[in-house]
């Protein structure tokens, strides 16, 4: 489709505005993280990196970071195992209630976090399970499974069945086929799924609020610190840290799952 110069110019301007409004608030935080002043005002007169040092040496921040990392890694690990198994099962077999399982599985990401959080809290209370790292992990795993599942099943659906048949035909046992064909075909989808799952877990607030009890994950600490309003520069520094920690895996995941030909069936057509 050909657009007139005017239309194209207008679209470009509009797109620039959208991106600006998305990015500008982030830039504000990043800038203030380097502001030496305690009170955030423009223009910034004195630049400093000391807030990062303050944040890094704050035991509360350290504890929260450590808890967030543990929860993220564990939730991702659980999501990987369960999400892959479900994806294989649903892709491979036709069984009664298959569509229902599929739908129920992606529900946590569609439901408002507050519903999932409240439901989990009530369930934990009812079962008499005290809040701990593990209740956080379970809460996060509910939506982390979805990303892994979605990534893996999308790849499986794009993978031609005849590749597996070809492998068996050439003499490979089912285990060899899994190791030499299935896993390499899925590897980037799995990595992308895991990175997204970790990123989701790492900055999750709502479900965590309901399942963390008295502990603070990093986002919970930030949330609390903002409300107290005493340590805003330090919060900014922490937020910049979170930003980097979540953006990096997401960017990498996006790169490996788009700019590659592995998932496509290279066999078909010309």
């Amino acid at each position, binding site marked *: 489709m050909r657009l007139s110069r005017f239309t194209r110019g207008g679209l470009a301007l509009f797109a620039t505005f959208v991106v600006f409004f998305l990015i500008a608030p982030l830039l504000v935080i990043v800038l203030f993280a380097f502001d030496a002043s305690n009170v955030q005002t423009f223009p910034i007169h004195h630049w400093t990196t000391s807030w990062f040092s303050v944040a890094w040496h704050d035991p509360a921040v350290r504890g929260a970071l450590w808890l967030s990392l543990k929860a993220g890694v564990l939730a991702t690990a659980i999501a990987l195992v369960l999400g892959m198994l479900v994806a294989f099962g649903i892709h491979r077999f036709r069984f009664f209630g298959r569509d229902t399982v599929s739908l129920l599985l992606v529900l946590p990401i569609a439901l408002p976090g507050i519903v999932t959080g409240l439901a989990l809290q009530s369930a934990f209370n009812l079962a008499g399970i005290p809040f701990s790292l593990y209740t956080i992990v379970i809460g996060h795993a509910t939506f982390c499974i979805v990303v892994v599942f979605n990534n893996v099943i999308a790849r499986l659906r794009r993978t*031609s069945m*005849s*590749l597996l*048949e*070809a*492998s*068996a*035909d*050439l*003499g*490979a*046992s089912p285990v*060899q086929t899994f190791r*030499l*064909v299935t896993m*390499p*075909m899925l590897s980037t989808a799995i990595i992308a799924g895991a990175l997204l799952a970790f990123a989701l877990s790492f900055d999750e607030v709502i479900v965590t609020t309901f399942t963390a009890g008295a502990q603070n994950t990093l986002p919970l600490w930030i949330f609390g610190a903002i409300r107290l309003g005493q340590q805003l520069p330090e919060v900014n520094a922490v937020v910049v840290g979170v930003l980097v920690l979540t953006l990096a895996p997401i960017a990498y995941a996006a790169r490996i799952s788009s700019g590659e*030909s*592995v998932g*496509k*069936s*290279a*066999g*078909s*057509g*010309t």
Partner: protein
Amino acid sequence: MSSLTSPATPLTDSQQGIVLRGVTKRFGTHVAVREVDLDIARGEFFTMLGPSGSGKTTLLRLIAGFEVPDAGTISLRGVDVTGKPPYQRGVNTVFQDYALFPHFTVAENVAYGLRVRRVPRIQRNDRVQAALEMVRMTEFAQRKPAQLSGGQRQRVALARAIVNEPEVLLLDEPLGALDLKLRQEMQVELKRIQRQIGITFIYVTHDQEEALTMSDRLAVFRDGQIEQIGPPTEVYERPATEFVASFVGTSNVIVTPAGRAVLRPEKIELTQGPPSPGHVGAEGRVVDVAYLGMVTRFTVELDDGRSITAVRQNRSVGGEKDSLLPTSEVTVSWDLADAFPLATTSGAESQPG
């Protein structure tokens, strides 16, 4: 020339390639393959021909081991392999979509079968090299499948199968995705390779010309059963049923004093005077003329209302088409010996042309 229709003639042990007995496969209520008996000799180029849904591909998949028959036995060189998984059979398949592993190079694809069977690396490299040479793909060894054209992928798929030195090579419409020119090239190539390595080829196609060109013998499938089996000339010249007559080439079904008979269009003479001596014929009117390059095809409506298709070779430049125009009155005639009688089956009226 062999007998009229060749029933499964018993083969001696040394000839025996594949033996199918009473093989049946159902998918739900649909019977895809119905009690098929089939003997394929070692070293034979055997084609399974039929329209889609006739059961030819299912039978190929049964031989490969991707499907398990509901009844019957499949044996390979006298060994029953009916219940064995694909990786325990001495057969390899060339898939319709080639099914090359996208994450491996051409060389790694070809080496795959040897690798999973733990053939020592040095031997492996030599055999991969030889297989790539056979399909003329040596220079592409380090490419990924995505970097190859359709014809090149086809060759790699072939090399990946034959490198394992299977007793039987199964080919599932391997040339279906290629354009006509490339397809004809690959037909010649496949025949050359088959002669060179001397193994059994079982070839599935719905292209009757391909089947006639390449096969030592072919089987025509219909509704999960073999309608006729025999060498190409026999199947073409002496179709057993109207279905075979209409599916393999174009044919006219005529009524002779002896019953119904098949008459191929190229055996019909069109004249504007009396027919050649010894010919029988009928009067009619040309209703359609189609110039096909090598030949011109005429559709003639006979005075009794029946329709006959005849072809003539275009021997002189432009002459044939002009000689008989639509609405020309013609005499259609043929040698009675060229009309091949059909077995009296309750087959539906075939469509000439």
